[in-house]
């Protein structure tokens, strides 16, 4: 078996998240690579929540609808997901809460009185999740030692209790199949958010400011926990407006800073974004997309903010926008964003989406490109100092308050080279040209980067066009159907030359996007490129492998 998918489901509050991480970790012990798809409603308790852990011998970055094992902590999970099970699939359920009759058609079924076991062991109700994992491990012939080791890695609290309940389920469960052990090194499991956070840290982040908002809040939590390790100042202020303005104050003092949010919070940040463009204060904004308009579906996924981030903010200014497609790309993208921001003194946006941000990947840092940190363009100490001196590249030397002999004036108004407000038409044009000139140099530098990625069969005349988290699913489909995949990663300045190159030999372009209007399609249209067909999905869920395969086959005929 080259891959194996497990679905675990129950109500929000049942510990599904933790359980799915342990399952992926367990399969990781055997050498498998995983992607975890998370599906949960915007509720703290109740509702239906589930995760699909897809493990494979090769790197995966998407989920399958079809599953090999179903772990049901309640009746709803059986009712909603039984149809996904393969004929040989295993179902393990809590016989205290699931009606046995509803699983009678499944060949490999095992009911365990989880609720009773927990009671007998005097364990918390939440431990039904680790109990069911014990049974699952046995069902795929994982040795107790492996399970024991996984638990030890994943629990700092109540380890013994968890082991005890898992052991009981393990002993009473049955073996149905055996997953072969692979001779592969184990990889850590990292969410897209964590990869972004680590990339920022790697590139020299000193401070992270954010107001909680799905799907980016986990970056705030993660970095708050790492604050001591990396000497970070992590702040959660009163609003997103405060977030970005506080960040700009920090930047002004020479500290590398990033902020994180989603569409709604980004709406509030746009005044600060525009200020960053005008005052040339470098800031990285991590923008985790989720469905809108407005509050939309807060905990689900989409790709609807591309056009928003490309044009947000009043006025015209240079910005860098990058849209990574998986954890490795996210790690790289956030490094690059911080670097480019500081090099050009412009705002950068790292555009993620919920599928990637909260999806979990087996993360191979060894395969990631790393940025070599470049020193910022600092003032050479020769007076007079002018914060906005008009240089050839448009980039003025930096100095930070506290430095003797210089006066540093940041200004949201149009200003002269010294940072003093002006309404003079000639100065206005000069300064606007200076700021926009950076884009030319930035675009030239980006020629050295893989700004448009090509995957699959590079000679195929049919190409899937995708961006963001759709990379994973598109690459798999392309490999299956012998197609090419074109994935723009840098969205601003848009690498039109590289995109044209990627299109060479292609006569059919099929855009795959998680939105209703074809946002990337619209972007490429403005550069004179067109798509021949669009596959759009906007129900808040990203494409499963089967669904996209089916839809691509219909289009290619």
């Amino acid at each position: 078996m080259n891959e194996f998918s497990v679905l675990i489901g129950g109500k929000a509050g049942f510990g599904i998240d933790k359980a799915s991480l342990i399952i992926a970790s367990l399969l990781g012990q055997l050498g498998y690579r995983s992607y975890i798809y998370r599906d949960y409603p915007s509720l703290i308790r109740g509702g239906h929540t589930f995760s699909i852990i897809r493990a494979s011998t090769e790197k995966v970055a998407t989920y399958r609808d079809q599953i090999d094992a179903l772990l049901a902590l309640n009746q709803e999970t059986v009712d909603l997901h039984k149809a996904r099970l393969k004929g040989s699939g295993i179902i393990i359920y809590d016989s205290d809460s699931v009606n046995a009759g509803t699983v009678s058609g499944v060949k490999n079924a095992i009911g365990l009185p989880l609720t009773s076991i927990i009671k007998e062991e005097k364990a918390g109700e939440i431990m039904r999740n680790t109990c069911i994992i014990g049974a699952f491990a046995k069902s795929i012939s994982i040795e107790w030692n492996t399970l024991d080791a996984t638990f030890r890695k994943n629990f700092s609290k109540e380890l013994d209790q968890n082991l005890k309940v898992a052991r009981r389920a393990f002993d009473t469960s049955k073996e149905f199949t055996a997953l072969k052990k692979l001779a592969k090194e184990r990889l850590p499991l990292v969410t897209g958010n964590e990869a972004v956070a680590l990339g920022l840290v790697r590139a020299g982040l000193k401070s992270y400011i954010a107001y909680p908002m799905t799907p980016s809040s986990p970056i705030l939590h993660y970095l708050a926990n790492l604050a001591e390790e990396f000497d970070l100042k992590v702040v959660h202020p009163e609003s997103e407006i405060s977030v970005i303005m506080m960040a700009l104050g920090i930047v002004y003092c020479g500290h590398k800073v990033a902020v994180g949010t989603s569409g709604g919070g980004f709406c509030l940040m746009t005044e600060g974004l525009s200020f960053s463009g005008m005052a040339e204060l470098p800031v990285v904004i991590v923008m985790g997309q989720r469905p809108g308009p407005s509050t939309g579906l807060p905990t689900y996924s989409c790709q609807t903010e591309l056009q928003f981030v490309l044009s947000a903010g009043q006025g015209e200014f240079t910005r860098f926008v990058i849209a990574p497609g998986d954890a490795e790309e996210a790690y790289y993208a956030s490094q690059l964003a911080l670097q480019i921001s500081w090099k050009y003194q412009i705002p950068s946006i790292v555009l993620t989406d919920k599928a990637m941000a909260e999806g979990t990947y087996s993360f191979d840092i060894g395969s990631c490109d790393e940025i070599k940190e470049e020193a910022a363009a600092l003032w050479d100490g020769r007076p007079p100092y002018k914060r906005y001196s008009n240089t050839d590249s448009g980039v003025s030397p930096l100095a930070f308050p506290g430095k003797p002999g210089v006066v540093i004036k940041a200004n949201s108004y149009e200003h002269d080279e010294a940072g003093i407000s002006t309404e003079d038409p000639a100065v206005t044009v000069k300064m606007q040209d200076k700021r926009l000139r950076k884009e030319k140099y930035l675009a030239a530098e980006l020629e050295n980067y893989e700004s448009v990625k090509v995957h699959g069969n590079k000679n195929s005349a049919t190409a899937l066009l995708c961006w963001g988290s759709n990379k994973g699913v598109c690459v798999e489909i392309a490999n299956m159907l012998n197609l090419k995949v074109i994935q723009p990663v840098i969205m601003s300045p848009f690498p039109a030359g590289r995109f044209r190159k990627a299109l060479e030999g292609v006569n059919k372009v099929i855009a795959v996007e998680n939105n209703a209007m074809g946002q990337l399609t619209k972007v490429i249209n403005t550069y004179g490129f067109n798509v021949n067909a669009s596959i759009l999905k906007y129900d808040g869920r990203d494409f499963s492998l089967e669904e996209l395969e089916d839809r691509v086959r219909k289009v290619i005929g």
Partner: protein
Amino acid sequence: MILNTNAKNTWCIGCGNFAILNAIKAVINELVAEGLPVENIVLVSGIGCHAKIVDYIDVNSFYSLHGRVIPPATGIKIANPHLKVIGHSGDGDAYGEGIEHLIFAAKRNIDITVIVHNNRVYGLTTGQYTPTSPEGYKGRSTPYGTKEMPMNPLEIMLASGATFIGRGTSGAMESLKKIIKEAIAHKGFSIVDVLQTCVTYYNMYDYYDKRVYELKDHDPYNYDQAIGKIREWDYNKDAKIPIGVFYKRESPVFEESFKPSGAEGRDRSNGIKKILAESV
């Protein structure tokens, strides 16, 4: 130090902003004479007539957005606690669009000073009412008079946990300088509401002249006395208007909650690899 820039001053003749400009310049000079390096001073302003003050003073400055004086001032202080961060804000800025930030700055006791140029009118946008205009104020957006009562911002500041609250006027230079200097010297969040007369849209010189008096025998460390004096004039009723330092309290400051962990300069690449290895 002269502290002038080559920017042309565009305030109306007689504007109360001049008094604040002169006061802050004098205070900066005194602080520098007392040993504060001038490069450690940062002025932050919002948008409005008041905000031009940063163009007119030759020290570090951050000309922010309307309502957004406090967040960057906070960020600056967090990034570099050695800096003296002085925010200049308008009353529309501080008490209207930016009031949430003001309340939170007081709540977290960040060590910055906020000087509110409170002329109780929008000057630069030509005379509309503000959060502290009296009931019935007739401005361009309220030709029949406002139907709202003004807020008493100092009472809000006291309730929010501000550790220094003062009031001055543009008509009493010497006392204004003293209050501002004391506010800057205070370790913690300090706010000075300056009744700054806008001669063009809301000329209150005579009104204030008749009512303003300096606090005497007032103990700023006494909360009850402070609230009594803060409530004496509510920005609406025709009462005596006290100026001076109303309230003072010592309390830990926010920026000191970020203690350097000693990780500065550590190899981050290895740190990341270690974290990943531990989570395998």
